[in-house]
């Protein structure tokens, strides 16, 4: 199918295998097919596109959205109902609590005229979450063709390998299909595909080349790379827009964009700042050292007593309770007894900065419990500013 190849790049062998597996409409297909591969390797996209283009009757559900068995089963039945009934009048919502009811209702629904013995496909995306639901769901879906005695095939899409799904006493083994990862050439081809029309394809391809040169050793996820490509392209075009360089001046363009991409790796890639903040930074062209990340780590100046509360919280969080006597009997506390209210304020502000988190229930009678969530390097830096050698008081460093 030529126009299918244009919609789905670099996945021709997988499309061919799936098409061969599906076979003709009325033929039986394998009762369950398990498709695995890295995230953003096209599993969901190829399956959906293929089923829609070939106009095969199918139902698509995501196991992250339907996190209980009831939600999952009801959604499948409702979507099937929608598929079978041609009139879009108010179709009654089905209630289905158990897998037994599901099988019974499924048999009823698939008797509809519009299906006429065609294979019905149920696609379960993010199938690894099925393992955490009721224990009979996964083996049941693997055998759905046998249990319902209908022409149905269930497709499982996941990034976890099949060996980790198999139940202890065994199950009906599905047909396992692997979606290989994209090679660097494939990535280049796919990323260059969505170049904005104002610029030439070669110009964009050179940009993608640079982007992959910086990020490929760290991340091969297509979704991440596309996100980064879109975010950073305006900065790349800046010299051309300002008139400082033309499209072919690769060295100048590279010198402009490379430090910017390296900064992106430390911030946007780690989701330290949001994309809108990043875009604003590009426009304002501020000094990169002024980037205020989500983690207030290097950019917050705490008041004197708050620092000690934080140090005390760290010690309390990570030293076992029985060692307190050992450390603190001869402690010349620099922590003066401040007003209780002020201490409460300081604790609240530390929680807002996400340096402490609330642990335990709200209704605990003896006051809320907190935990210190900063890393060792951070607390050492803080302790250094108040001349407190925290290492001496940490149990793990004895």
């Amino acid at each position: 199918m030529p126009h299918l190849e244009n919609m789905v790049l670099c996945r021709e062998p997988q499309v061919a295998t799936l098409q061969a597996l599906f076979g003709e409409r009325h033929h039986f297909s394998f009762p369950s097919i398990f498709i695995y591969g890295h995230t953003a390797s096209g599993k969901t996209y190829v399956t959906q596109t293929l089923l829609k283009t070939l106009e095969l009757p199918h139902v698509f559900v995501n196991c992250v959205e339907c996190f209980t068995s009831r939600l999952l089963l009801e959604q499948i039945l409702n979507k099937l109902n929608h598929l079978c009934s041609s009139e879009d009048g108010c179709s009654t919502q089905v209630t289905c609590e158990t897998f037994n009811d599901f099988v019974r209702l499924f048999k009823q629904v698939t008797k509809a005229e519009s299906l006429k013995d065609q294979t019905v496909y149920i696609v379960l995306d993010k199938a690894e979450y099925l393992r955490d639901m009721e224990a009979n769901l996964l083996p049941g879906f693997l055998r759905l063709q046998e249990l319902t005695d209908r022409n149905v095939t269930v497709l499982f899409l996941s990034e976890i390998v099949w060996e980790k799904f198999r139940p202890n006493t065994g199950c009906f083994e599905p047909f396992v299909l692997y979606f290989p990862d994209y090679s660097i050439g494939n990535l280049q081809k796919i990323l260059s595909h969505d170049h904005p029309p104002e610029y030439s394809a070669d110009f964009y391809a050179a940009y993608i080349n640079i982007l992959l040169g910086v990020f490929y050793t760290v991340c091969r996820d297509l979704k991440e790379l596309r996100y980064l490509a879109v975010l950073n392209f305006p900065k790349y075009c800046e010299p051309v827009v300002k008139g400082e360089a033309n499209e072919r001046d690769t060295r100048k363009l590279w010198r402009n964009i490379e430090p910017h991409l390296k900064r992106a790796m430390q911030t946007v890639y780690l989701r330290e700042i949001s994309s809108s903040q990043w875009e604003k930074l590009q426009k304002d062209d501020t000094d990169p050292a002024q980037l205020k990340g989500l983690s207030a780590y290097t950019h917050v100046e705490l008041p004197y007593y708050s620092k000690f509360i934080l140090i005390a919280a760290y010690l309390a969080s990570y030293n076992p309770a029985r060692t307190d006597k050992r450390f603190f009997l001869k402690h010349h506390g620099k922590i003066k007894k401040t007003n209780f209210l002020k201490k409460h304020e300081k604790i609240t502000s530390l929680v807002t900065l996400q340096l402490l988190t609330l642990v335990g229930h709200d209704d605990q009678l003896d006051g809320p419990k907190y935990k210190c969530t900063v890393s060792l390097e951070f607390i050492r830096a803080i302790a250094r500013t108040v001349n407190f050698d925290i290492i001496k008081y940490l149990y793990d460093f004895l």
Partner: protein
Amino acid sequence: MFELFHFHLKHRFQCIKMSSRKSKSNNVIHAEYLSQVQRILRERFCHQSPQSNLFGVQVQYKHLIELLKRTAIYGESNSVLIIGPRGSGKTMLINHALKELMEVEEVSENVLQVHLNGLLQINDKIALKEITRQLNLENVVGDKVFGSFAENLSFLLEALKKGDRSSSCPVIFILDEFDLFTHHKNQTLLYNLFDISQSAQTPLAVIGLTCRLDILELLEKRVKSRFSHRQIHLMNSFGFPQYLKIFKEQLSLPAEFPDKLFSEKWNENVQCLMEDRSVREVLQKHFNVSKNLRSLHMLLMLALNRVTTSHPFITAADLMEANQLCSMDSKANIVHGLSVLEICLIIAMKHLNDIYEEEPFNFQMVYNEFQKFVQRKAHSVYNFEKPVVMKAFEHLQQLELIKPMERTSVNTQREYQLMKLLLDNTQIMNALQKYPNCPTDVRQWATSSLSWL
């Protein structure tokens, strides 16, 4: 002479047209037959059609059918367990037996069947409702409230008594995934079914199908004592020569195929395949891993996928390709798609495992090991920030290539949580061989942790 030439040309042109039409029509004929072939074989491989033969289980079949006949015709109550590994043909056996039983006239009028499955009826309440539904007694039960399970069940069976109240209709209960029923509370359903099969009320046959060889250990004492201890074992007890015969039979087209010529050609091709040495090797490898017919069906299905109008017969190469697809190492495939940084982390973990003999490690330890590699002058290109390395580490955790030793507790920070690697050294080295564009220094680091000294 000119006319002769002209005639010659016209004749040639007609011949070409005719031959292309013939090959086109040949193609059309092929396509139609291939579609039929696909339909028949797919039904055989994917759907377990009832026409399939019983391979090597004749004795067990006889035992089962006699038992069923005794219940259906002579009103004797019985219970039996059919035990065999997955894919050994338990469901197929019972379906065959029931089909033959229903062909006897007096049986088909009287006998009722109830099919239960441990995956569907996950507790006894649902099971009871299902029994009511399958016996078509929903109207009779109506809104009655019963004191106990036993009362309910005996009411149902009473209701099945024939008009003259002299005898009751025999009921055959088939319990698939029998071992799951033993996990229900007090094993009430099993107790009651076996109890009724011992007392002479209604002729009842209870047939359980399970893959667990230790099924008797799972039964409670009072349930076990009411069970007749009759067991039928299906153990896939055929050897390789019979496996080859099964292969031939499964691929061959039946005698009722519409075009005799095509089906003869197809079956001849299957015979050639069976005698081909490379095909035998493939089948031997497959047989050594798993004897059961389901995995054979998967292999044949993969080979069948390659049949098209331009490639109408299965070749030895198809089967070899299919075997390769079946025996892929899936974890190695996942490692193939990792980024270079993630591969470096796996190599660092491998070295930690070698030095500390598989003791669990945490992120900080892996990071320190990685830094030892990075700090060599030539490797400064891998000098990434710690949070970037942490993100790569978390990706490995998401892919379940590394696993925490215990559930994430509140007390330890992420960097210090103990983990273990779920790949072994040979898997890692094999995956590295196939890794695309693996940098040489990374590969050298993998082969020896001391090479950088």
